[in-house]
């Protein structure tokens, strides 16, 4: 790996962007590693899990990590938020960086299915398995949500069509 010359990095710009998009805790991180220890993204083997993403942002990385798909693996479980001793709110840093990635159309293909699910049915994650499970425990096959409600789906699509997400051209 080539040596990074810190004085040639524009740390302020990327930090400012992350802060603007909701990740203001990025400046508080002391790299203790508690978030990484329980992070499913880290456990699954993605390289740019919460702690690493934060350090790279602190160092001034942006373009170099823009295409990294790790952030899109975050399931927002928020365990990192619970264990962080400095109030960094790592999930928000990850989501802020996703927003930056999205603006640059650097969206991982791994997330496209859930995006279109969201647009069509109002749910990012849909699973045939869940239907069986619901029946097994005595619940109706489909939940009483937008998933079977065309009117609701229409409303969601209207909302998304009028949001900045529409500009990304993924729907």
């Amino acid at each position: 790996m080539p040596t990074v010359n810190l004085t040639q990095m524009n740390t302020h710009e990327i930090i400012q962007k992350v802060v603007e998009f909701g990740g203001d805790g990025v400046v508080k991180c002391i790299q203790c590693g508690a978030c990484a220890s329980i992070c499913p993204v880290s456990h699954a083997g993605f390289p740019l899990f919460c702690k690493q993403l934060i350090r790279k942002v602190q160092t001034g990385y942006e373009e170099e990590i823009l295409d990294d798909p790790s952030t899109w693996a975050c399931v927002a479980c928020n365990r990192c938020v619970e264990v962080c001793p400095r109030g960094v709110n790592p999930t928000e840093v990850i989501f802020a960086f996703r927003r930056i990635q999205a603006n640059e159309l650097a969206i991982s293909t791994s997330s496209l299915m859930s995006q279109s699910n969201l647009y069509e049915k109002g749910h990012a994650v849909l699973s045939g398995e869940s239907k069986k499970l619901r029946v097994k425990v005595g619940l109706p096959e489909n939940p009483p949500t937008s998933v079977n409600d065309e009117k609701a789906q229409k409303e969601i699509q209207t909302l998304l069509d009028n949001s900045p997400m529409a500009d990304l051209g993924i729907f």
Partner: protein
Amino acid sequence: MAKVGVYVCHCGSNIAGVVDVAAVREYAETLPDVVVSREYLFMCSDPGQELIRKDIKDGLVDRVVVAACTPRTHEPIFRKALESAGLNKYFFEMANIRDQDSWVHGDDHAGATRKAKQLVASAVAKAANLEALEDTYVDVTQAAMVVGGGVAGIFAALDLANMGHKVYLVEKEPSIGGVMAQLDKTFPTNDCSACILTPIMVEVGTHPNIEMLTYAEVEDVDGYIGNFKVKVRKKQTYVDWTKCTGCGACAEACPAKVPDSFNCGMNDRGAAYIHFPQAVPKKAVVDMKHCLNCAGHKIGQEPRISKKTGEPMLAPCEKACAADAINRSLPWNPEGELIEIEVGTVVLATGYRVMEKEHFKEYAPDSPNVLTALQMERLISATGPTGGKLLRPSDGKKPKVLDFISCVGSRDIRHHTYCSRVCCMYMIKQARLLMEKYPDLEIYMHFIDVRTPGKDFDEYYTHAAEMGIHFIKGKPGGIEMLPDDRLRVLGYDSAMGENIEVDADLVILATAIELPEDAQKLAQKFSMTMDGSGFFKELHPKLKPVDTPIEGVFLAGCCQGPKDIPDTVAQAKAAAASAAIPLAQKRVKIEPILSEVYPEKCSGCGICVPLCPYNAISLKPYADRPRAVIDMTQCKGCGVCASACPSGAIILHGYTDDQIYSQIAALTQSA
């Protein structure tokens, strides 16, 4: 026949976890002279001591052996128990079956038990031969000396003086203040060092109980607790301090150029100089080593007469002095003045120095833009060489990128293994102060790890990170000099696992705190022991933190080990309180474990005289010839004289031949 009582201590599980205490107690019952043998969980506790007191009061025992821990900490406690029960307290002997047995033989219970029995048998044998001894007392000179006029010495002197004691404050520089006077602001509150220190320096200077001896050094020490005789050399100032007003005109007039030590060599001062603008006392000195002898006017000679004017030709310093304090024609003694001061107690507060950058070849010490952190303090101080402006030494331009490197010489087996304790915090302080003053700076800081164990310290650090100061975990291994006087710091970010580098205009090295050489020499004069890190060693790291092996001599500040200002002041006040105890008691006890000469047996050969490490022995006429006499107040009871005397004329009380032989006999019989 002596009636010996044996008391075996469990010391919780410290002893009983290894040694079979019951077996040792039973064995003791079988020893000659033993009338009772008991065991208890903690003999030093009140119920434990009560066992001893009751047996004495009941008339059961008249000699006491406690088999427990070390006499160093616990002998005084048990002696007191004997005394309170009405028995001479020197009818006591201790067997150390913990430090010298259970703690070192934890893997051999049977062997440790056997050794405990032998140690008890030896102590019992000696106890049966003990003699009654009496303490003696000597008066305490009602004055104290504080050596070192930094913040530690200042506070020690003030507290002692405010308790009503006369204090001599000895400082080698022309002014008190020490390193703290060189600092700009102080963490974690960022209050200005001069603002908080100088009023207290003035208080010292004007205190009726404090006699300041600045520009003076301790030359020799004699005596003992309560009666120290200290020879102090007042170095020659070549300025009449009774007349000097501290105006500084001589310093301005002096054309000599000497690296200014107060500004860490970053500018020059004259040979005539005032230590720093807020000096206490504010008096000038002439550094004769660097004096140019202007106008050919050498010290002690009449001035030459100008051929043109017929007037005497005076040096600029003389001419500048409106107070007539500088008269080079006077016969100034270059040796200064040697005075002897008698004091009861001494506080050593000689301080520290920081390592110079020249020790660190990997960090480009030849570059003027590589500074020690203390140089940085002077560079940002309003009284410093640039008046507080941050300017790059190589070209006087304002730097844009600063890089701090921590643990330079600390935590490094090539230099000092210890942590210097203050560097992390003062580096963060300097960075924060600079960021506040110059928000456009980029500041990088490399740490092995950030250590902030103090009140409000960690909050101070984390706020620095939020201010935009870049913290990098990983110690740089080198610096490359770039063509434009900039420096490329070669680092590693262990959080990312990547090599990094910083192109800096200024690099600041947090060099280690260490004991200066002159303090090492002073340590010898006061018979101090040094710890593994090279600092003065306290008597006990927890329970006697300001005491030393020399009774009546106490420690304060960084001479005992690196510490910050809050800790230094706390320790100084502790040392002052400890040093005041003998002064308040007005007399000190001299334990009778001392050597004594039987003059009838002494042949006057004098072998013992040079052997005594404490100069306690002299030959004095007795009957027909000179014989050895031991000064009780000087003797430390080491026993060298007693073992060397060819006539067996010297007895060491508490360790007589009979007592030692009986111990050897008991030890050599298998238990």
